[in-house]
């Protein structure tokens, strides 16, 4: 195999695959990327759950494929000063040449690199790339962070009322974001790691569209010569629709920036472990208090429009901040039932968040 590539071009591809190739693994082959030169140059990386295939441009002098340690290869390419880089194979070694610099790397057999399973693109769905990334960005914060609850450790995507809904929950809060959607799609649960890779890989692409294909518990996402394949979670996301507090009777309309500033201030003093703040909600005014047994306390007041009963309710301030800051409107609506029940935050038509209170 021998290819001549532009440094800038190949770096773009290598950057994308870094997150996928494993750093520590019981299978050393997964620390490698597979560089293939057939009718085009492709770079593949996989950690078995997530895989990426990225196309790069260059001149192919001899076809073939090689297996190279991902991180070292990336660092070497990055360090080279020349514009044009020649990558070739010499018996078991890989030669990298650019200008007067040259490197020789030991390589593993490309036959050992695991085959990447790619869903068939026959039934692909095309979405606006920017919309899809935006939806993931809106809901990523509420994903359950560790794998002790697999059913919540990802983004649940399903079709409901002619909308594509992206749902996440860490069991203390839940949120969703919707995109208009008329086609049909299977319900899928993309893992947390898969989600963050999709955001990373496709945020910088320049093309408008993102093609999604789903088959046998794998989903692929393709845009501009880059394909990302993720193994979907096989567990079911909990039935969240039945716990959505859509009928909360009391509604408070609050200035988004005011409540955020106020919560940020009180977070400074709130107890480290619970981040608890107490809301005392009355007509026209909400007073918010943060108490810390060891440090002292803080209090703040904000005005709002409210038609309900007076309620005292406690929240984890951090949860509220995250839920509210994803809303785009200047005013948010907070609907409440009582001190122990879920609160629904609506920012704009597409975004809703549920936050559970803390006991007072």
């Amino acid at each position: 195999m021998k290819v001549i590539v532009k440094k800038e071009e190949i770096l773009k591809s290598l950057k994308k695959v870094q997150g996928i190739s494993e750093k520590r693994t019981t299978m050393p082959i997964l620390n490698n990327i597979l560089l293939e030169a057939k009718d085009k140059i492709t770079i593949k990386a996989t950690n078995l759950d997530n895989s990426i295939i990225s196309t790069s441009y260059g001149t192919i002098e001899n076809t073939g494929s090689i297996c190279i340690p991902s991180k070292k290869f990336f660092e070497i390419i990055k360090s080279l000063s020349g514009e044009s880089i020649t990558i070739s194979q010499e018996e078991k070694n890989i030669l990298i040449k650019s200008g007067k610099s040259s490197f020789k790397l030991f390589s593993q057999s490309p036959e050992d690199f695991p085959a990447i399973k790619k869903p068939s693109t026959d039934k692909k769905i095309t979405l606006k790339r920017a919309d899809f990334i935006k939806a993931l960005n809106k809901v990523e914060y509420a994903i359950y962070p560790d794998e002790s609850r697999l059913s919540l450790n990802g983004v649940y995507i399903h079709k409901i009322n002619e909308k594509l809904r992206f749902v996440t929950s860490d069991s203390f809060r839940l949120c969703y974001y919707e995109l208009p959607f008329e086609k049909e799609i299977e319900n899928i649960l993309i893992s947390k790691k898969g989600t963050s890779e999709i955001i990373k890989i496709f945020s910088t692409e320049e093309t408008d569209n993102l093609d999604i294909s789903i088959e046998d518990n794998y989903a692929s996402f393709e845009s501009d010569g880059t394909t990302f394949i993720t193994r979907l979670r096989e567990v079911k996301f909990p039935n969240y629709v039945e716990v959505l507090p859509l009928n909360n009777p009391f509604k408070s309309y609050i200035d988004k920036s005011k409540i955020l500033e106020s919560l940020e201030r009180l977070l400074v003093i709130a107890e480290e472990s619970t981040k608890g703040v107490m809301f005392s909600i009355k007509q026209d005014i909400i007073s918010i208090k943060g108490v810390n047994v060891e440090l002292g306390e803080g209090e703040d007041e904000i005005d709002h429009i409210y038609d309900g009963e007076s309620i005292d309710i406690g929240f984890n301030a951090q949860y509220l901040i995250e839920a509210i800051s994803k809303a785009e409107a200047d005013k948010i609506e907070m609907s409440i039932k009582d001190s122990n029940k879920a609160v629904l935050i609506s920012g704009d038509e597409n975004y809703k968040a549920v936050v559970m209170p803390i006991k007072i």
Partner: protein
Amino acid sequence: MILHIDMDAFFASVEQASNPRLKNQPVAVASSEKRGVIITSSYEARKYGVKTGFTIFEAQRVCPHIKIVPANFEKYVSTSKKIIEIFKKQGITEVFSIDEAFIDIGDKNPLIVSDQIKKDIKKNFSITCSVGVGVNKDIAKLASGINKPDGFYWVKSFDQIKDIPIKEVCGIGKKISGKLALISVKTINDFVNIKNEVLRSIMGIGGIRLKMALLGELFEKVNPESVIPKSVSNSMTLPQNIWKKEDIDIALFQLSEKVAYRLRKQGLGGKRIGVYVRFGDFTSISIDRRYYEYTSDEQEIFKRAKNIINNLALNKPIRLLGISVTELSPAVQIQIFNENKKERIEAIDRIRERWGFSAITWGVLAKRFKHKPPISPAWRPEKP
């Protein structure tokens, strides 16, 4: 002024006080009569080199005429509760463990208060304690260790403590003292001279807090409500060594059940779960892992503990198993899902409240191990 009272060889002293034949004799309290380990020993036994953690066999080897007494935790708890009442007469009391407490005595004379406490305890329970006095809890705790047993020590200036090895300070574990040794920090004086940035990188903000405390510049309140323990844990020496998966599961679930119940009784949940394994040959491993959710649910604790133990190489028969839950916080955050589960657990707790812990248990524990639970160092009197 702050007093730190530390009961001298508490469990052993209680045994000696309640049985005249054990008076002035080397006595060791063991977790169980046959296969237990030494939990504590009297000062007479310590002279022979008997140490906490010894097996009964080891204790008998260094001190052949030692009297082994199986632990009677109910007795220690009830004595401890009565002693705490004596402390409360003297000032705001923070119970630190079953045999230790802090008292804020305000402007009272520490010598007089200490004498009174010692007299009251001696008269009522025939046991002794050591008292440390300092401007804050950290210094008082350090001081009580200086003249043990039946001691009294008042730290009035930094010079009195500056040469004490830093590893003897409460909060400096093996890991941290090892790191400190690397930068040639051995004494308290060395410690307070570490630059804040360095200290922070070694042990976080807690290091700076401790430095200020040792210099007498920090005055944290004695807090009777500071009953949030550092950890809730439970361990058991098994009636015989086990190695089968089913047996390990039963033991782990049994421990989880106990730990979970104790967490719930205190209204707490924990994030970090630790598993401790001691093998038949007395080698041991412990490992812990942090999870996102605070939990006080036995099934969840069991699931996490099992997950942890599955990653350990269990290639030898197991003698003792333990589970600890740390990073505790009041369980205040309400969950979205899990409503049914919560009701089920509340029902279990109500039954136990009325008819005792063993009135109800899980089906998987039909074949449970017989075990008299030891007491955790984080023991606190229950809230009314």
